[in-house]
């Protein structure tokens, strides 16, 4: 009887604490993350669907969408090529300073986007930049123009692809490439038919992360853009500008477009994780039967 009582007394507080943990977690995430997400949707449709659709007749909003897409369309392929090149060069190879090189690739994650923008201004500004003379003598316009903004987007997003592909390639090993080569495949063929397919999910994952961040980048682009409405305003800059000018509906309309892109990227990411999980489970029995 006594032991039963003790068991009860022991298990009671444990039960309470255990059921409290998910409640606290849900409350915290609900207040900090879920409510803001709902607010965007509620704010965008506050006056119904018609004003929301009307927003898109704004010339400035449309040009902001186009500029955001242009920066993303430049940054994503550029960083994909770099990520794959860096992965084939660095992964599966041991050399002195490898850890340092990997940290350097990660650097843009820890530098404030504003400092990234500042660096570009100090490099390319026609009046104060290190290469300002070269830039203006060539007649280029980089700062306060789209090339600078695309460059800012590239810097801020450039670690994503490399970081996804390098660890996976390290895990895979050389066997398949060597087999392909002994069968007479050229380097290019090996890359396209063996290396790339073996890391395809990491590449897809990297594409999703890079695109999501490129669409939403704010700080770095804000510094180099000059924020001229209709000319050098990306969608995030447009949101801030409209909000500051008390053009709330327009701000929410643009914010919902951006938020939807974010939600889609999140769903795609979950979907890919599911696929990878499925693929791993399928490949395990195969491996077992092979050994």
């Amino acid at each position, binding site marked *: 009887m006594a032991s039963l009582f003790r068991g009860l007394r022991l298990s009671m*507080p444990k039960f309470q604490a255990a059921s409290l943990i998910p409640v*606290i977690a849900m409350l915290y995430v609900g207040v900090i993350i879920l409510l803001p997400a709902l607010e965007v949707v509620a704010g965008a449709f506050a006056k119904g669907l018609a004003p929301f659709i009307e927003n898109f007749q704004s010339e400035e909003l449309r040009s902001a969408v186009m500029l955001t897409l242009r920066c993303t369309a430049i940054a994503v392929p550029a960083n994909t090529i770099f990520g794959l090149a860096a992965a084939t060069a660095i992964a599966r190879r041991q050399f002195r300073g490898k850890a340092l090189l990997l940290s350097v690739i990660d650097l843009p994650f820890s530098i*404030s986007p504003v400092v990234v923008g500042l660096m570009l201004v100090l490099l390319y500004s026609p009046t104060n930049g290190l290469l300002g003379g070269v830039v203006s003598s060539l007649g280029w316009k980089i700062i306060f123009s789209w090339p600078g903004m695309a460059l800012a987007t590239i810097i801020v997003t450039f670690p994503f692809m490399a970081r996804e592909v390098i660890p996976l390639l390290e895990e895979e090993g050389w066997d398949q490439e*060597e087999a392909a080569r002994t069968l007479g495949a050229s380097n290019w063929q090996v890359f396209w038919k063996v290396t790339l397919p073996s890391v395809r999910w990491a590449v897809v994952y990297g594409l999703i992360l890079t695109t999501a961040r490129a669409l939403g980048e704010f700080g770095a682009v804000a510094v180099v853009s000059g924020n001229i409405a209709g000319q050098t305003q990306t969608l995030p800059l447009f949101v*801030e500008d409209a*909000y500051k000018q008390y053009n709330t509906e327009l701000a929410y309309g643009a914010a919902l477009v951006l938020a939807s892109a974010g939600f889609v990227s999140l769903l795609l990411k979950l979907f890919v994780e599911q696929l990878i999980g499925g693929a791993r489970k399928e490949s395990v029995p195969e491996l077992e039967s092979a050994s």
Partner: protein
Amino acid sequence: MAPVLLARAQRLELPSWLQMSWSWRITWLYMAFVLFLPLGALALKAASVSPDQFWRLATSPEALATYRVSFGLSLLAALLNGVFGLVIAWALVRCSFPGRRLLDALIDLPFALPTAVAGLALAAIYSTNGWIGGPLFALFGLKVSFTWLGVAIAMVFISLPFVVRSVEPVLEALERDQEEAAWCLRASPRQTLTKVVLPQLMPAILAGVAQGYSRAVGEYGSVVMISSNVPFKDLITPTLIIQKLEEYDFEAATVIGMVMLGFSLLSLLMINGLQVWGRHWEANPASGA
């Protein structure tokens, strides 16, 4: 060096050296253009400032006030997320409850939601007529948006995922045997938590806190929307850099930018150190104590 590499390449039957050197060439060229050149421009500009002037600009009252806001409030936000991140990771790994998958997906939202959108939404919710700010103002007369509290909330929002995602895998790998053993040896639940579980999670928690801290210090988009951007009150360091640039005060902007860059490098080193410590601990828990 080169002959050694070449010999190794031949032994492993690596592709002809040409292709590898192409991927190396792309890597270095790209990094030089995208990373080293801009970094060099900042460093050169900073080097052109005399040491006295550098120190004067870096520690001007205006700059010091923004450091207090940026570095102080970020620490507050990161520590708060250290506690709640652990609770959330625990709920995700150890508990089963309805909505667990939704919770898991929501954690990544601060990464996926563009910062301008997050700032807009947070400013609206915590304004005096918002969903949360309204009741807070009516009941306690507390203003959140456009004060330092709002800045802290935005920092909490963007640094939340780091601790959760850093602790989760370690907690998953933790063997329940140890907790059961502690329990068998008559350790109380509190003792089990503080003496068995927490020490093993500590490297992961600290790494997550450091990552969140570093991110919150550098954050601009969401903070600038919810802050009133008044100097000496709730102005953050990145915004000060932008203001200096708008005043064409390139020297001050460069010096303050260097301070932030120095902090970034330091935090990167620390995070790497913490992660190495964490792996070391996983491999050999006893020696870490």
